């Protein structure tokens, strides 16, 4: 178990700046996720922590030891590759035993540990198979077994589920969580899937074009996004351009279309803002102390376990989500509709994108 610190990590590839000064602090025994769209620098960060790439600037610490230029083989931060990187000329057993043989463990101990790892990933009896004889999910579990069998200080997972089908992905997701809890190791997880990140992580760092936008628990990230990017990246949400027209301390009045919303919390200097409202926080029936928005129905979309109502408010489209059929009875396209929103559910953030 190890604590990882990144200080001002900068990395360029030719002309492109992949990382623009990353600071991160990953705590003992935590499952920490780097989340972001492709090209945001999350995999580069992971490779730098694994010692497969080296930063142009900045330092990396494992506990109090600086490891910035320690080679991958000496670092003990073991990576599970996105494509699993199983050696096709070795059996499952030999793949898993590889790291133990490098560490020159006695033969019996290697056998014992490989057996233990195979049990952990539920692949007993597959020792003599070759990787090509395994399904995607099995290969993935061999890759995990190969990594954990050497008892790494830090386990790194690079989009480990991206090559699996939807059902298997869910299964493996809880497997990874289970194994991490059982072993109590520090895990750094990289994904572009916000749902996966929320389900699995203790904490998440949301990354965008080479910077960390926000670090926090899944709940913090989802409910209290600090930037427009984080808000819009975490699931379907309403992001409405608006501007600040009045300020009283940290309370402001903002305007979009012909609507004025008063008494919202906002502290940034910029007057160009966005209003962020989660669709499921918009009510279609009256609630107390709510902001009322009157518009007309553009679309009603049926998703099975919920229904979305797309309202037009002037030129602005706002989506509301409900699980109640009653809420949408009486609504019809082009007909009138009223959205009710609790002020606490309206976030005002500086316009960024």
């Amino acid at each position: 178990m190890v604590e990882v610190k990144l200080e001002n990590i900068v990395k360029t590839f030719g002309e492109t700046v992949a990382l623009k000064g990353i600071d991160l602090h990953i705590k003992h025994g935590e499952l920490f996720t780097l989340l972001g769209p492709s090209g945001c620098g999350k995999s580069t960060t992971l490779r730098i922590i694994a010692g497969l790439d080296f930063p142009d600037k900045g330092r990396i610490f494992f506990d109090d030891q600086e490891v910035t230029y320690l080679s991958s083989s000496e670092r003990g931060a073991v990576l599970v590759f996105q494509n699993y990187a199983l050696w096709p000329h070795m059996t499952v057993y030999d793949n898993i035993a590889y790291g133990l043989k490098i560490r020159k463990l006695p033969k019996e101990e290697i056998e014992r540990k490989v057996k233990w790892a195979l049990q952990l990933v539920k692949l007993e009896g597959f020792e003599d198979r070759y990787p090509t004889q395994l399904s995607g999910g099995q290969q993935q579990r061999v890759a995990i077994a190969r990594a954990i069998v050497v008892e790494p200080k830090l386990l790194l997972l690079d989009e480990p589920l991206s090559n699996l089908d939807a059902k298997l992905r869910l299964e493996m997701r809880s497997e990874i969580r289970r194994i991490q809890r059982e072993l109590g190791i520090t895990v750094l997880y990289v994904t572009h899937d916000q749902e996966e990140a929320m389900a699995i992580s203790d904490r998440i760092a949301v990354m965008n074009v080479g910077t960390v936008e926000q670090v926090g628990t899944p709940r913090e990230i989802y409910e209290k996004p600090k930037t427009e990017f984080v808000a819009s990246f975490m699931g379907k949400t309403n992001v409405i351009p608006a501007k600040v027209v009045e300020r009283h301390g940290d309370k402001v009045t903002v305007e979009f279309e012909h609507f004025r919303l008063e008494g919202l919390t906002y502290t940034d200097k910029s007057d160009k803002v966005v209003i962020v409202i989660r669709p499921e926080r918009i009510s279609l029936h009256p609630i107390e102390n709510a902001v009322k928005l009157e518009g007309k129905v553009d679309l009603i979309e049926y998703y099975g376990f919920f229904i979305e109502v797309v309202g037009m408010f002037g030129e602005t489209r706002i989506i509301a989500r409900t699980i109640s059929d009653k809420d949408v009875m009486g609504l019809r396209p082009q007909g009138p509709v009223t959205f009710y929103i609790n002020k606490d559910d309206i976030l005002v953030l500086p316009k960024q994108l």
Partner: protein
Amino acid sequence: MKVSKWSEKLFGTPLFEPLVSFSYLFPLLYIVVFLIIPVLAMLAVAFSHGGHFSLYWFKSILTSSYYVQFPPQGDFAVRTATATGETVYLIRGIDFGVVINSLVVAALVTLLASLMGTIFAFIMARYEFRGKNFFRIVLFIPLLVTPFVNAYVIKKMFLDTGLINYIFYELLHILPFRIKIDGLAGVVLAQAMTYYPIVYLNAYASFINIDPTLEEQAENLGSKGFHLFRTVTFPLALPGIAAGATLVFIFSLEDLAAPIVFQGDPLAKKLMSYQIFSKFLYGLGERSPEIAALSIIMLTLAVLAFLGIRKYVSLRQYAMLSKGGRWKPRVSKPRAWQAAIIYVVLLPLLLFTIFPQIGVVLLAFSKQWSVTVMPQGFTTEYVKQMLFNPDVRRYIINSLMYSAAAVVLIVLLSVTSSYATSRFKGILTPVLESLVIIPIAVPGIVVAMGYFYFFSQIFPNTPLDPTNIFNFNPAFVLILAYSIRRLPFSARSVYAGLQQVHVSLEEASMNLGAGRWKTVTGILLPLISLNVFGGAMLSFVYSMSETSVGITLGSLNMQYAPITAFMKDIMMSAAGSAQLAAALGVLLITVQILSIVLVNIITKQRYAFIGLT
């Protein structure tokens, strides 16, 4: 923490690692010392006159009518008669002077070879017809390389009493008179027939690799027939065809076998390769600046062709679109007129182009071949001589040993250079990439001359000094020459193998604690062993039949000479028997067939490729 700015710049990895440095520096220094410096040594000689830097020799060559002659001299065809009074048209070509002749011959050979190679490749890639398997097998035969004897048989084919006249004049009466092809025209024919398989292989691979959906889309939009070929198929295959054509151009430029075989006609001697060769042999021990200058001119032409094609192909690296999906080859049945062309034109043409190999085998077992269509009489005399004559056996053993030693070096060079260039991106990467492939563009006779100047200057009066007439031992020099000249074949194969191994397989190993050495030997080498083996066999086969250096430096001390030097001696001396050379040719063919079969069985690859890109 051994962070090194130098390592990062040069090798593209900030951690200084001995194995990575070695992978870069060993092949780099090897090629610089044993190819670049010898060529520069020659340059120094070529550009000096009276102890000063001077363009004298270049001026003297390019202004002499012996080397450059406009308008050309001589008649393309001359009418003569046989002893029995039949009309014979003797076709020899015309004389533009040595330098221009070489260019004209190389251009014509390239044109003919490209035409034949592309047509055969296209019908093999796109048509399904009866006897296609026969074509497939037969097309493999012209690939078998037999220095000198091959050209010798071709010369016999085009004699006034040869196979061509027999069929077209005596049997079919298509020709109204006999023809005889000699001189430069003979060289063109011999080289075109020998080298067209190179274009064939490259073109075939190109046609096969075209994503069928690209052609289907064109058809879908209304294109068909020749229009489809002209607008989509051919342009997509052109980079491959052009790469093959360039190889043929360079090979023709440097070829010595055909001019030596046709040297009975003085016109065939008026080629750069032959001039360098003969001036070297007769001016033995002399470090002639004129030869050096002529070598530089030839090298320049070859390198220009090479760089041109590299530039062109790199500009046209079409990324094929296909992602997943079924790769259904576009094969169709030929229509009646197409079938007619295949059976009436292409089949006989194909059979003519394998006649040299057939002829070599027949000749090896025959008593004599003078003015008849086929060799006469059966004897095993020459095969026995080859197997049991201690002198002949010595040449064979020399060649085997030199080639084997060269292959050991080649494997080491290919693996290190490919590892460095495929896995790291430092400023030395493109340098090394070019150095490894450049030996293809350096004519063998230029390597030979470069070594001659280099070793006589650096190691005078030692066994490495070629001017040290009685003590020179060419073994070391030949092994070096083979290892340089045949390196590209193996390096390409190993590099291709490395590209198929995802780099994460090595990263996973190092990430789990293995060092660089353990990762390379435990993970990488087992995964690319087939590519290494295939490349090594190819390099071995072509080392055995190496001609230019073998018949120049190699023949300076016959005690240590390779097979090819001995074959040249037989072919050049009036007393020698072509049959013995043919027997050695059969031996080379056997070695080649065995290697190719072995490679095919072990690596399951269909062809051993000769290519450029």
